[in-house]
């Protein structure tokens, strides 16, 4: 008796093992149905990776594409944070998707690893906002179909401040006049800092992160050193000492405080808006701290085409002729709430939502976040140094050391 129990247990374990080894090849089995249908329907087949905010909109577009062309489209739900690494790892094995959603700042890494194919948008290119195409362009070639543009701006609680501040000092004065706990909220993240949110202030001192070519693309030459960068660093130190900036104001704390009316201003993006229900908001340009305009980063979301796609023609057809239509872009906007990249769709979206219109207006003056691979070396030093300066480190020497460290990491 005892033996048969053991035997049964052992067999069940073996069974579980078998189940596990089939689990190991799970990624392949998801592709299987589409692979079969390609031979039967011969309309080709597509596998598309999406995250949950885009799932419904893409599925709808895929459905109409399916009805029209007979192509089987398999929309696979992925966690957005995992898409980049999985795409890099799986495309070379031939098991990756044909199309994936992604952010434009992945571009440098994706092209260096040869996992994305260029797109030829042809005449449809004219319909897109310039900044969205520029973000997906490298060496004159477009690598992604943009569908949404997002950038930060100054969100103002109109009950606490009735006009948009032109400069940082105006904003502080207005914030103090409002008598709230914080004059202005600029989020940070402990000692990791948040250079993305602080970037408009940096550009207002004339210290962009990299030199730009004439066509707006970035070179790998650092531009944030020198007297401009040092001036910005000193400003960070002063504001930190005055208590206007703090590394302890994390995203959650900042959003909570603004929601509770503890500050008239917060620097943030469209993703915050749904937390502020019930407040009367106005979207204004970020006030300049230096003597130049404050330009935030623009992030562009889009679709990439795999370099190893077996169904490249169908994939191109889907992206260029279906996802670039106004209907598809508006559907994506309604699903994700991010302003569309297609000008016509953006006009539609802006017409019925002043918040979208506000962000779009600010975004018109913004610059794309660099997508060159060198940017990875910048992120790791940038925020930490900013946070340290805000926290009381010597501005100029810290900033100069950061520039040296970034340069040596880029050269290594």
């Amino acid at each position, binding site marked *: 008796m005892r033996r048969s129990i053991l035997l049964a247990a052992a067999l069940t374990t073996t069974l579980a093992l078998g189940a596990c080894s089939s689990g190991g090849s799970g990624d392949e089995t998801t592709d*299987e149905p589409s692979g079969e249908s390609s031979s039967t329907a011969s309309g080709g087949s597509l596998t598309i990776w999406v995250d949950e905010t885009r799932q419904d909109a893409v599925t709808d577009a895929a459905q109409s594409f399916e009805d029209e062309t007979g192509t089987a489209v398999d929309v696979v739900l992925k966690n957005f944070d995992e898409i980049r690494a999985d795409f890099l790892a799986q495309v070379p094995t031939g098991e990756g998707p044909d199309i994936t959603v992604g952010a434009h700042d992945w571009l440098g890494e994706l092209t260096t690893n040869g996992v994305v194919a260029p797109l030829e948008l042809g005449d449809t290119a004219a319909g897109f906002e310039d900044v969205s195409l520029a973000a997906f362009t490298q060496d004159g070639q477009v690598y992604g179909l943009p569908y949404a543009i997002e950038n930060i701006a100054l969100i103002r609680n109109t009950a606490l401040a009735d006009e948009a501040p032109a400069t940082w000092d105006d904003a502080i004065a207005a914030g103090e006049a409002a008598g709230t706990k914080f004059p202005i909220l600029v989020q940070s993240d402990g000692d990791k800092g948040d250079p993305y949110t602080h970037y408009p202030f940096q550009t207002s001192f004339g210290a962009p992160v990299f030199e730009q070519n004439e066509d707006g693309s970035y070179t790998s030459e650092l531009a944030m050193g020198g007297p401009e960068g040092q001036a910005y660093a000193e400003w960070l130190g002063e504001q930190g000492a005055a208590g206007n900036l703090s590394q302890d104001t994390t995203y959650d704390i900042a959003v909570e405080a603004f929601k509770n009316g503890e500050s008239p201003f917060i620097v943030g993006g469209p993703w915050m808006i749904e937390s502020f229900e019930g407040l009367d908001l106005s979207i204004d340009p970020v006030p300049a701290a230096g003597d130049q305009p404050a330009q935030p980063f623009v992030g562009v979301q889009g679709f990439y085409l795999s370099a190893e796609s077996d169904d490249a*023609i169908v994939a191109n057809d889907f992206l260029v002729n279906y996802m670039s239509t106004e209907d598809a872009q508006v559907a994506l906007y309604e699903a994700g709430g991010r302003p569309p990249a297609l000008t016509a769709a953006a006009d539609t979206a802006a017409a019925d939502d002043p918040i979208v219109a506000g962000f779009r207006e600010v975004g018109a003056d913004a610059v794309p976040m660099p997508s060159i691979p060198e940017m990875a070396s910048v992120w790791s030093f940038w925020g930490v140094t900013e946070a340290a300066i805000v926290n009381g480190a010597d501005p100029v020497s810290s900033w100069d050391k950061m520039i040296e460290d970034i340069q040596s990491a880029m050269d290594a």
Partner: protein
Amino acid sequence: MSSPQVTSAATTAGSSGDDVPPRRRGRTSRPDASHARSYGPGFIAKLVLMAVVDALGVYVVWSAWTQDSYGILAVSLALLVAANWVYFTRRALALKYILPGLGFLLVFQIFVVAYTGYVAFTNYGTGHNGTKDQAVEALLVQNERRVEGSPSLPLTVVEDGGTLGFAVVGEDGAVTAGTAEQPLSAQDDATVQDGRATEVPGYAVVDREQILERQDEVTDLRVPVSDDPEDGSIRTTDARTGYVYTSVLEYDAASDTITDTSTGVTYTPNDDGQFEAADGSTLAVGWRVPVGFDNFVTAFSDGRYAQPFLKILVWTFVFAIGSVVTTFLLGLFLAIVFNDTRLRGRRVYRTLMILPYAVPGFLAALLWSGLLNTRFGYVNQVLLGGAEIPWLTDPFLAKLSVLAVNLWLGFPYMFLICTGALQSLPSDVMEAARIDGAGRWRTWRSITLPLLLVATAPLLISSFAFNFNNFTLIYMLTGGGPRFADASVPLGHTDILISMVYSISGVDGSATKDFGLASALSIVIFVIVGGISALAFRSTRKFEEIN
């Protein structure tokens, strides 16, 4: 953690092996009584279970076959054959017990370690992501340029006796057609409908279905505009519209070189898996090649890492040993206190004690990082009345906080195992000690503690190995910060070796990815932890001699 399990598996196998021979000898006189030969309910149950296993196994093998995953195919086939042999033969009794365990070990431990070892000797990482063929293809495609100002041409895919070609309608409405060998030529008799060529004499129009079956051929097709290659060639990505492209790079398969047609520079493949020109400049996309011990050399020779590496190594040991010692002492103390039968409500206290153990570690660490926030954290705001103590941002306090949080997380485990060990201590030995006139302290020091250590020492060693690689806590609580102010690499005061590997490898996005270097460092850590554990296990044998 795995070592104690392996030991127990081995003992199970050993003991079962011990009591088998007598039975088997008894059976030799009655061969039909063998479990494998009798057709009783046990055999039928086995048959059914094996049928299920085989069905699953065959499914896995078949799936692997259809996906061309021959590695998975070979391994699952071997496991399947082994399972069938083991459970239907009479001679492999020990294996009947350990085969499932061995299978798991193979898939989840040995394969992972071996693959890490393999990656450590390659340059897998950003810029060396795939095979050479893929790199060449990517370079060629990335360096094709649409001729500036060229129109988009409505395109029809045509066929000339099996050879694919394109027919395009120019801006003036004239139709031209050609194949890869035949440059575009005017087709005056072609029919144009809705701006697209629908019939071209001499060519057969390929329908959509066939195009989709021959997608690779269509996307790879380049139809020259004229005899002069400078004019470029027509290509299409969607089989609907064609564009004129010129390519900057050309690959010559015979000499295995890439030539830049605009500068005339020739690039040849080098040992690092990149195309390199005579002046040392390289093309961006490379491929994965074995690089020998280069990664290990880099790990120890990069001057920027030397000083932080030493600090991190020391802190890793302090953290791992400190965590084990503090959690064990607190757990032991509480176990002794709550082991006293005079204490009322022991069960309630014990349950409360175990609560931190029930909270997932990553969640608790995240929670504590909020509680310890300098300006808004509960600890400073409420408990300390608004003090602004930089718990997680001061180098010394951050280390202290990490140890304290790990103490909070870890003591229930030690409390549990100490309680268990204390309750299983034989009372006769205690009684003997009392009769011999040993005092309380003497009994505890000479009897209780050594006996306790026999039971808990292996767990302490595995706890050390666990904390040595306790990535979750560091990542969630401090992220390795505060940063070293004097180092030029993104590492911090609370980084331990494994979080250092995470940051150097660039998986966190703070540097370019280098899986080769990360794997090499992981192997170094594996050697350190494995070596220390082996030494420690050897020295715990002297506890066992007490028995």
